[in-house]
């Protein structure tokens, strides 16, 4: 079981209020991703749940029991750190068995669990090596192994993939998702990468300056962002924002339109502009277009558009996918 509730939780470091009052419910078995720009308080929030930081006020409940004052060792949670935080003086086997040793589990059961975790994570051949003799991806797997042997109530991941190279990151992303499918244990995952959030999460929590901006499924956030911040943070390339007269026509202070919802033509359209940069990815082409009286617009077209730097193009927004925001940034 791994239901976690945060009630009126606040955290201040001295004078600085990092998390003003915050409520959050995490259901058992959910994959929840905390996402936000650096300094938004997402790691602090995770550390509060872990017990590595004390809350300034409020209550943290794990499975309905008040865990606010419970030390990290006895919360029944497992954590995977960004730096892996393996014990360098122990073999992989001892690293993975460490939490079991701390729980004073008998040796045969320890061995059984370590062996099965190593099998799941493809670490069987490396059990007698030291962490220093492993690659980044293998170290990450050891850290995950150390977390799963305990059969915790929930897993906490603190930006676990940010030290890996791009290709490995995609692999590990899949592995963690598969792990969640097979274990069906609550996972809380912190990242600043919205692609990771979109691809892995059941539920995304978007944080900004210690506040929750929106909670929802990845597609909820994509389709109906609650405000301009979420609209701009979720989706890649970023949503285009247009203010002024053009927004006024739609009865809004600002309108937002995603690059994939702009239609491109070389002959006619709502707005005329000049292509500043064209990025050809093969499957897609990203165009950065200067339009009079607006910030540069990003347009995404499928395949190879055959359009280059300096070309004149016409752009039309898809009215169905237009987002309208008021002066405070709230969605209308």
């Amino acid at each position, binding site marked *: 079981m791994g239901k976690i509730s945060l009630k009126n939780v606040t955290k201040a470091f001295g004078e600085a209020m990092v998390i003003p009052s915050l409520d959050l419910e995490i259901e058992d078995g959910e994959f929840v991703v905390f996402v936000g720009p650096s300094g938004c308080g997402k790691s602090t929030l995770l550390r509060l749940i872990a017990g590595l930081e004390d809350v300034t006020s409020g209550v943290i409940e794990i499975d309905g029991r008040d865990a606010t004052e419970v*030390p*990290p*060792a*006895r919360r029944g949670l497992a*954590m995977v*750190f960004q*730096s892996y*935080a*393996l014990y360098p003086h122990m073999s992989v086997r001892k690293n993975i068995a460490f939490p079991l040793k701390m729980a004073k589990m008998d040796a045969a059961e320890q061995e059984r669990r370590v062996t099965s975790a190593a099998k799941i994570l493809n670490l069987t051949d490396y059990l007698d090596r030291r962490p220093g003799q492993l690659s980044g991806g293998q170290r990450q797997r050891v850290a995950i192994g150390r977390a799963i042997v305990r059969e915790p109530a929930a897993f906490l991941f603190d930006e676990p993939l940010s030290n890996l190279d791009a290709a490995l990151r995609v692999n590990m992303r899949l592995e963690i998702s598969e792990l969640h499918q097979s274990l069906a244990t609550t996972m809380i995952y912190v990242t600043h990468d919205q692609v990771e959030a979109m691809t892995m999460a059941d539920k995304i929590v978007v944080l900004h300056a210690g506040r929750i901006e929106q909670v929802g499924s990845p597609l909820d956030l994509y389709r109906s962002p609650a405000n301009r911040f979420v609209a701009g943070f979720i989706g890649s390339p970023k949503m285009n924002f247009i203010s002024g007269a053009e927004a006024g026509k739609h009865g809004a202070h600002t309108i937002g339109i995603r690059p994939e919802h702009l239609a491109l033509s070389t002959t006619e359209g709502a707005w005329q502009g000049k292509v500043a940069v064209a990025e050809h990815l093969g499957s897609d082409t990203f165009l950065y277009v200067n339009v009079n009286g607006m910030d540069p617009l990003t347009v995404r077209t499928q395949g190879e558009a055959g359009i280059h730097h300096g070309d004149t193009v016409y752009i039309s927004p898809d009215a169905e996918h237009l987002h309208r925001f008021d002066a405070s940034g709230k969605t209308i």
Partner: protein
Amino acid sequence: MARRVSNRRKTLVTIVAWAVGIAIFFPILWTILTSFKTEAEAIASPPKFLFFDWTLENYAEVNSRSNYFLHFMNSVIISVGSTLLGLAIAIPAAWSMAFVPGKRTKDVLMWMLSTKMLPPVGVLIPIYLLFRDSGLLDTRLGLVIVLTLINLPIIVWMLFTYFKEIPGEILEAARMDGAGLWEEVVHVLTPMAVPGIASTLLLNIILAWNEAFWTLNLTAAKAAPLTAFIASYSSPEGLFYAKLSAASTLAIAPILVLGWFSQKQLVRGLTFGAVK
């Protein structure tokens, strides 16, 4: 061109290094040589360097006149004892300063170090009186206590710098894995700091072995370590250089051997943070 300059520089640096090394080692070498001379040759002018009648009579004389083994054991007990006691106090102290620093941690560290700036003779009388009244004069226990206290600031500082190098996340990981404070220190922190702790241990044994001020002033016979053993050959009967040299050689030999075998560990430990 650049290569030639750098070669010349290298030669120069090597010569200077050797010169400094020989200058530092010369008194020790001279002491060792003198210990094998007769008293007459020891004060001969001009001094004889290697060509004299080598003799072991000084060692025989020193051995028959005083109990070398007693002083040697005293030195071992006092230096090892004070170092172990110091480590037992300093490991938790350095842990708390490195991993749960408070507002005043830096000040506490500076204050501890500042006690090393006080001339020991300034507190000789009070400490002497304290020792006299508590019956610690000329006891090994008394010397263990005083040398522990004297070297404690250095032990804490050294351990603090080593502990600082250990990433806090690893200790947090241990906490998440269910380790209590004690298990965290025993299973994670201490094994990771072993190189640092080992070089602290070695350096402090050497410092305590060589300490002469307190060991001379607070002992008479029973607890006197090798420093007092050397001193007993200096003044009262006039200066007998050869016998004094033999006593000195006997006193420094154990620590020289220890230093020789542990020099790799010592250098590695002392440059632990600097060359990572």
